């Protein structure tokens, strides 16, 4: 079947199998490999992308369901001018180690900060509780989100 999906602002039209998962569409068809695959059961969250502005686990979405919709991936986080504050904060605060969960984590955290620019620690932990990181013990991810929030507040001030 033919689908048209807008990914990071660019429209892509492809013929795909109806059963193709969105994560495989992004990775294998569009070669946007920043989005990862980790579990098949929607537990780990390394596949999180934005679907129409909200985080979604792309291993549990068919590419066909994204037909006519907008997807944003880690490749669309920063721009030519530089990094998104959440990307900078993950590096500054050592919010990543192996980097495998990082794109999904950053997409969720960016969405969190967009709706709550100054989240509490409990709010941050709740927001990322659908995602697993095996390296960081989450502490520095929480610190990264706080740092990105502070950077956002500075920009506004």
């Amino acid at each position, binding site marked *: 079947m033919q689908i048209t999906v807008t990914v990071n602002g660019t429209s892509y039209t492809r013929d795909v*199998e109806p*059963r*193709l998962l969105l994560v*495989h569409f992004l990775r*294998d068809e569009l*070669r*946007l*490999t*920043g*989005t*990862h695959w*980790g*579990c*098949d*059961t929607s*537990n*780990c969250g390394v596949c999180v992308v934005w679907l129409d502005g909200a985080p979604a686990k792309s291993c549990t979405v068919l590419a066909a369901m994204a037909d006519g919709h907008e997807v944003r*991936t*880690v*490749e669309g*986080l*920063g721009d030519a*001018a*530089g*990094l998104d*504050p959440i*990307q*900078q904060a*993950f*590096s*500054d605060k*050592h919010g*990543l*180690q*192996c*980097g*495998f*969960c*990082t794109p999904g984590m*950053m997409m969720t955290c960016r969405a969190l900060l967009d709706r709550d620019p100054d989240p509490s*620690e409990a709010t*941050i*932990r*709740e927001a*990322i*509780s*659908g*995602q*697993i*990181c*095996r*390296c*960081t*013990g*989450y*502490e*520095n*991810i*929480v610190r990264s989100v706080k740092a990105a929030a502070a*950077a956002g507040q500075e920009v506004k001030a």
Partner: protein
Amino acid sequence: MTGTISDTGVSAETPMGYGSMRRKEDARFIRGKGHYLDDIALPGMLHGAILRSPYAHAKILSVDTSAAEAHPKVKAVITGETLAGLGLAWMPTLSHDVQAVLATDKVRFQGQEVAFVVAEDRYAARDAVGLIEVEYEALEPVVDATTALDPGAPVIRDDLEGRTDNHIFDWEAGDAAATDAIFEQADLVSSCEMVYPRSHPAPMETCGSIASLDAVTGKLTVYTTTQAPHAHRTVYALVAGLPEHKIQIIAPDIGGGFGNKVGIYPGYVCAVVGSIVTGAPVKWVEDRSENLMSTSFARDYHMQGEIAASKEGKILAVRVKVLADHGAFNGTAQPSKMPAGLFHVFSGSYPMAAAHCSVTGVYTNKCPGGVAYACSFRITEAVYLIERLVDVLARDNGWDPATLRMDNLLRPEQFPYTTPLGWEYDSGNYPKTFRTALDIAGYDALRAEQKERRARGELMGIGISFFTEAVGAGPRKHMDILGLGMADGAELRIHPTGKAVLRLSCMSQGQGHETTFAQIAAEELGISPDDIEVVQGDTDQTPFGLGTYASRSTPVSGAATAIVARKVRERARIVASAMLEVSPDDLEWAKGSFHVKGDPLASKSLAEIAMAAHSSLELPEGIEGHLDATCVYNPPNMTYPCGAYICVVDVDGGTGQVKVRRFIAVDDCGVRINPMIVEGQVHGGLADGIGMALMEGIAFDSDGNHLGASFMDYLLPTAVECPSWELGETVTPSPHHPIGAKGVGESATVGSPPAVVNAVLDAIGVRHADMPLTPAHVWRAMQGRPLRVDLAIGD
């Protein structure tokens, strides 16, 4: 947010050396530009998928691949029979056993590899797997390790000639007679039976491989998720009979390893055979269930421990009998003379007159493995044993567990200390480390709070663990894997313009080697770590060495890096002496340059020296041009990091739910090269401890069904289960390591589980209950009716 001085934050003011610089590797990871195994797409690449056994133990009567072969997108179907024709149906394990690549006679665990399909895409490969018909005759499985040696138990390994039981090995360490004599005389003896249940490292990236055989050159290139690329190359050469110089192993970015990516799995071998058969590159990546069911599990130690003490509270001796469940093939990755790994560090952090262990390994109808999951070759089990026994001893005698530990810890003046089991601990200040943790925790205030809460009927617990790790395997005379000594190489070359490339045999899985090892070389050379490129993971580009696991990279490759940089520096001294026309002895090193003693202006920077070394400058007789060096580091001893951990929990008495309120971790890993990275390593290991103690566990039902085969069943801690870690440090350098560093990657995974368990048991007032302390297990333990954690068999 742009305009930082560099991606790593290194500035002109702080050009070199140790410290919490940002990681060099982050630049690609935060942009989604990491390059992991499954990101690789080679031209014409095909995809493999494995058919696995639904049974734990069954005879294979027939395998019909005709429907799969007829699938329009299928290029090859490989069975055990195919492999037998090539002599590849069985492969050697890292413990001198053999393992079936694809089963021919029987399947011996649920999830075992039976057939391999190669197809044009990953979906078609999976479809075709479903078209293969296998006729099985189910056999009685051996699920319970404690009955595996019973007379009449089904013999799992009837492929081994003359095999009549499920016994693998008996092994012991320590002086049994001396230990028994102390136990006979001791005032006090406490004993405890405990199971360290089977768990799985479960990195976020599963295991996989792409094999590509060039039919013209005969060169086999294998891209693979390996923590030990050079060891893999040698094993492939031994397994497949391929010439080693025609094999190139490339480890791309690795999405976490934790020991899961040390071994060679049947899927890797199948990908190689798939490439040979089809003439195209073949990718195989396991799914999550395959990862949890068929690649290296961890632990599965059934321990009967005893501790002897005087009535004044002096620990005198420890002894333990272990039943080790190794699964269907003995595939543990550990030094070959040590079938229980380094378990015999179990005398822990306390001097004692004698200790003894006996370990019996058995086959069961479960997945092979044994030492994975950040455990430093079974030190996790050893630390759990001693730290549980000390708590049981304290409880049995009404002593405070902190006081008992403090009174028994090794004193600084006792180092170097040789344990009754033969380990020579290099350095430590254990009382200081422990005191630091007690102070951060506010231990006395916590006990007072606990008393108040108990009076109100609330269940609050405080748990302590003091661990000694032994990392940096290892001295060649004691340790090898498959006959390969555990030394590691380093090669350092300074380019003409003064920039450098450092080539290492170890392989990062997220630990930050590109940064840490650049920092070590930078400190020695006096140049910026940003100017040093670290190359790892490609066997054609790096020196031989055994890789990254068991927290060995900093102790071994870190030492190699410092030494190779010092060699380069001494070469630079000779070149500088020719440039300045003085004797090398008249030169002084000033971090980045040599100058004439007493004349700082007569100076040559490393960059100037490097250019001169590549120029027409006349060098002293016998000195070659260019500026580079190589080194192989054979560690004289292990390094022995330690740590004091304190966990505070609240337990809901109605549901058994445990909430970890606080976790204090004070680590001493010697000199810290990048403190930010060290803390990150500790954070991750502490989460592992929460997971193992409270959530993670793989049980089997009576048919041998694996009950933790997805992340819906095998529960890993999230941000909600983890508290905000409270870290502290003491620094006692290793006296034998060139820069005084010790390993730290696994300290927290090793040290934290007993702190959590001790806290939960303290809260509920129960002497012992096994991990994982899920709400159901806690609640049952509180009723005095604990469940077995390794078997899902009703009471």
